[in-house]
C-alpha cells in the first residue's frame, strides 16, 4: 500500500529542511522515494498548510520497571481523578503522575511521540521494565541499564582489573538486560547508602570498595566509548538536589576528560548556595560548560508546578528527600546487590521559594545552552512533572511573553534571584524539532528515526500551526507509527505495538567466568536465569520487533 502525505511543510533538521513544502511517500512502514509518475496511491492525506515533523522521541522517561510500579501502587489517590474506561480500541487505565502502561502509550502517541526510553533499568529488574514497556502501546521503547553501584563492578574496580574486563562486563550487561545504553546513578552512592553513608562526593572513596565516583564515571564512560555504543554514558550525578551541587556537576564534566557523556535532569544538579537562603541558580555555569565542551550533552529535567511523584534509582537522595514527601509517604529500597530505588511523591508549588527557583533554573538552562543538538526536552517524567506537560513546556520555551507572565506569578524572591526575566530567547520550531526529534535519535544511534529522509521509519507527526504552542503541540492532527495512522486530532484511532531498540556490543564470553561465580556465591539468582533472551523479549511485547542497532560510532579495541 502506498500512502502519500501531500504538501506539508516539512521540518527535518537531520536533513537541514526547515519548513519546505513537499510530499512524503510511505510504503511498508518506511518513507520511500517518490514513485514513478502514474503510480497508484492507495491513500492520500492533504497536508497543505500543515507542519510535518518526525515522531518525537523522549530519551529519558520513567515508564517501566519496579519503581514505576511501586509509584502506581502507592498512589491510588493520584489515579482517581483521571480514570480511563476501556473502549473498543483502548484498555482501561489511569493518567497523571503515575499513569498505567496502556494510558502512557496512548497519551504519548496522541501528543505525537513515537518513542520513549526508560532511563533507569536495573539489570536485575530488567524483565519487569520490558514487560511494562511491552504493555505500553504504540510507541517504540528501550532502556538504559544501570551500573555503578552494583557490587560486581565495584569489586572489579577495587581489584584494579583491566579496562577490557570492565568493558566486557558492561557489554555483557547491556546485551543480556536488552538495553540501549548505560546509565550511572549517583555513582557509588547507592552502594554507599547501604553502608549507612549519607553522601558521597565526587572524590570521596566509597565505603568498602574505596573507589571514587570520579573513577566510576571515567571507567564507565571509557567502556561505552571503547565498545562503540552510540549513546554515551547517561549520568545521574552525585549530590542530586543538594544546594551547591553545581560544583559537583562541573567537576563531573571535567572528570570525563573529553570522553562523551550525557548528563541527565541537569536542573536538579545545578544549584548554588548564594543569597540569604543559600540556594541559587547555577544554570549559567552549567550552560557555559555545555557550550564549551562538545563532548557533553544534557537533558533538563524541568520541574513544573503541581502534584507529581519522584521515582529514582538514587535511594540515597530519595531517603534524604523523603522528609519532604507530599503526601507524606515514601518507599526506599535496597535491591539485590545491584542498585536501589526511592519513590517519593512531591508537590512543586509556585509560592515555594525553592520550587520556584528550580522552575527558573530549568528554563534558564534551556535558554542559555546554545546548541539544540545537545540539550533535550525532558521533565524526567514523572520526577519534574508528568510527560503530558510537554506542550506547556514547549510553549514556555517558544513564547517569551507567556513565559514572563508565568514568571510574574511565582515566588518573587525566587524570581528575583533568576536571570530568566532578562532572557529573551524564543525557541524556533526548527530548534524544537532538533531537541525533540533529530537530536535524541542521533544521540541514541537510531539511524532510521527522528528524521524524514528516504529509508526512515514512517514515524511522522503533523501539526496545525498555532500561536498557542501548547495547544498546537498537545493535539497534532495526525500521528503515524511505522506508516500506520494511530492518532488524529489528539485521539487514538488505531493501536499498534511499537518496537524495542537495543544494542549488543561485543564482549569476550570469558567474562562469564567472572560473572557466573559472582551470582552463585553472592546473589539469590543464577546467572543463567538472569540473562534475558531475544525470545523472551518478543513475549514481553505482544510480538513486537526487536531492533538491534550497530555499535560503530566509537573506537573498538
Amino acid at each position, binding site marked *: 500500500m502506498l500512502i502519500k502525505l501531500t504538501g506539508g511543510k516539512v521540518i527535518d533538521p537531520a536533513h537541514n529542511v526547515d519548513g519546505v513544502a513537499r510530499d512524503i511517500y510511505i510504503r511498508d512502514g518506511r518513507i520511500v522515494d517518490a514513485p514513478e509518475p502514474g503510480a497508484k496511491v492507495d491513500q492520500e492525506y492533504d497536508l497543505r498548510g500543515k507542519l510535518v515533523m518526525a515522531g518525537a522521541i523522549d530519551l529519558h522517561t520513567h515508564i517501566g520497571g519496579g519503581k514505576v510500579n511501586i509509584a502506581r501502587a*502507592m*498512589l*491510588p*489517590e*493520584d489515579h*482517581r481523578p483521571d480514570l480511563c474506561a476501556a473502549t473498543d480500541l483502548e484498555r482501561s487505565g489511569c493518567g497523571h503522575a503515575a499513569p498505567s502502561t496502556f494510558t502512557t502509550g496512548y497519551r504519548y502517541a496522541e501528543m505525537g511521540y513515537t518513542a520513549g526510553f526508560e532511563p533507569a533499568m536495573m539489570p536485575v529488574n530488567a524483565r519487569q521494565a520490558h514487560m511494562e514497556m511491552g504493555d505500553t502501546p504504540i510507541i517504540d521503547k528501550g532502556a538504559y541499564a544501570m551500573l555503578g553501584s552494583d557490587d560486581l563492578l565495584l569489586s572489579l574496580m577495587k581489584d584494579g582489573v583491566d579496562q577490557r574486563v570492565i568493558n566486557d562486563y558492561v557489554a555483557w550487561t547491556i546485551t543480556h538486560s536488552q538495553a540501549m545504553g548505560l546509565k550511572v546513578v549517583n555513582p557509588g552512592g547507592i552502594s554507599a547508602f547501604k553502608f549507612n553513608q549519607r553522601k558521597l562526593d565526587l572524590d570521596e572513596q566509597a565505603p568498602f570498595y574505596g573507589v571514587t565516583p570520579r573513577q566510576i564515571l571515567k571507567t564507565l564512560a571509557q567502556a561505552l566509548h571503547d565498545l562503540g555504543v552510540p549513546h554515551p554514558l547517561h549520568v545521574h550525578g552525585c549530590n542530586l538536589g543538594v544546594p551547591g551541587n553545581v560544583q559537583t556537576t562541573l567537576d563531573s564534566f571535567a572528570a570525563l576528560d573529553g570522553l562523551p557523556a550525557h548528563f541527565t535532569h541537569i536542573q536538579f544538579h545545578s544549584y548554588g548556595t548564594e543569597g540569604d537562603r543559600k540556594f541559587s541558580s547555577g544554570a549559567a555555569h552549567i550552560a557555559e560548560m555545555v557550550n564549551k565542551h562538545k563532548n557533553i550533552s544534557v537533558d533538563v529535567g524541568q520541574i513544573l508546578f503541581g502534584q507529581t511523584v519522584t521515582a529514582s534509582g538514587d535511594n540515597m537522595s530519595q531517603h534524604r528527600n523523603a522528609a519532604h514527601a507530599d*503526601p*507524606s*509517604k515514601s518507599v526506599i529500597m535496597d535491591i539485590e546487590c545491584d542498585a536501589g530505588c526511592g519513590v517519593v511523591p512531591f508537590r512543586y508549588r509556585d509560592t515555594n521559594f525553592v520550587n520556584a527557583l528550580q522552575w527558573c533554573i530549568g528554563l534558564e538552562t534551556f535558554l542559555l545552552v546554545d546548541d539544540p543538538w545537545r540539550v533535550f526536552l525532558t521533565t524526567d517524567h514523572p520526577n519534574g512533572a508528568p510527560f503530558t506537560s510537554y506542550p506547556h513546556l514547549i510553549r514556555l520555551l517558544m513564547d517569551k511573553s507567556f513565559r514572563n507572565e508565568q514568571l510574574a506569578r511565582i515566588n518573587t524572591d525566587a524570581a528575583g534571584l533568576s536571570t530568566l526575566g532578562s532572557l529573551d530567547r524564543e525557541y524556533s520550531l526548527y530548534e524544537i524539532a532538533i531537541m525533540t526529534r533529530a537530536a535524541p535519535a542521533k544521540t541514541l544511534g537510531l539511524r532510521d528515526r527522528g528524521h524524514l529522509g528516504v529509508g526512515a521509519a514512517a514515524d511522522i507527526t503533523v501539526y496545525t500551526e498555532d500561536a498557542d504552542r501548547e495547544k498546537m503541540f498537545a493535539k497534532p492532527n495526525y500521528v503515524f507509527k511505522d506508516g500506520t495512522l494511530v492518532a488524529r486530532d489528539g485521539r487514538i484511532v488505531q493501536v499498534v505495538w511499537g518496537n524495542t531498540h537495543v544494542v549488543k556490543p561485543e564482549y569476550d564470553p570469558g567474562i562469564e567466568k567472572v560473572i557466573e561465580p559472582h551470582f552463585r556465591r553472592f546473589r539469590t539468582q543464577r546467572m543463567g536465569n538472569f540473562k534475558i533472551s531475544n525470545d523472551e523479549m518478543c513475549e514481553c511485547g505482544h510480538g513486537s520487533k526487536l531492533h538491534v542497532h550497530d555499535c560503530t560510532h566509537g573506537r573498538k579495541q
Partner: protein
Amino acid sequence: MSALTFTARGMPAADIDCGGLTCDSLAGKSAAEVAKLPILVGGRQTPCGDVFDVSGSDTMQIVFRGNGATCNRIGAGMTIGSIRVEGDAGDHLGLQMKGGKITVTGNAGDFAACEMKRGRIVVQGNVGDSAGAPLPGNKKGMSGGMLVVHGNAGERLADQLRRGQILVAGNAGAYAASRMIAGTLVVLGTVGAHCGHAMRRGSLIVRQRPPLPATFADCGTHTLAFLPLLMASWKEAGAPFATLPVNPRAQRWMGDTGNGGKAEVLVWA
C-alpha cells in the same frame, strides 16, 4: 413541594453509586429528568429510573426509601440541602461532603463520613467499620463537621480523623481512634481492644476506661475547662449527647508515645 424521593424498585444485588444524586447535582431537574440520568450500578451505566422510582420535586430535600445496604456514596460531595435515608445506607455515606445534612433512620455501612469536610450526618442505627477514615492512599480522614451515631460503631472508628467531631452513643469496636490526627471522638458505650493505636493528637472521650496500649501514660485526674464548652457544642446533636451531665473532671491518658503522639484519652471521672 414534596421531597425528591428515590424509592427502591426491588434492589439488585449490585452496588449502586448514588454519588451523583445530591441536592447540588440535581438542582433544577424534574423527577422525569432525574430518572433518565445515568448512574453506575455494579460498575455499569444504568438509567437512574431503572433502580429507583423517582417522584417529587424539591431538590433541596432528597429522600431515599426502602434501600438495601447497596446504595453507596449517598451525599458524596454535597454542599447544600438535606438527604434523608429511610432505611439503611451503604458505604461511603457523605463522602467528602462539604455542607448540608444527611439523616439515616437505619444503619450505614463502612467508611461513613469518609473525608467529610463540613456538614452533619446523623445515623440512628449503627455504622460499620472505618467511620471518619480516609480513602485508600489518602492519609487524612474526616476534617470537619459532625457525625452522630446513635447505635454502635464498628472497628477502626475515627481512623486518621483530621478534625471535626464524631459522637457515638453505643459501643465502638477494636482499634478506635487509630492513627487519629486531631479532632474529637466521643464514645458513650464500651470501646474495643487496641484503642488509640498510633494516635497522634486529638481527644477520645469515654465514660469507662478503654483498653489502652502500653504507649499511653496515665497523667492523672484533671479539671478540664474546655470540656463543658465542648459539651455545649453537642446540644444540636440531641439526646443522649445533649443531655449528658456536664462534667469537667476526667482522668487523662496521653500517647501514643511510640510515634511521639500527644493525643489524649479522657475518661469522665
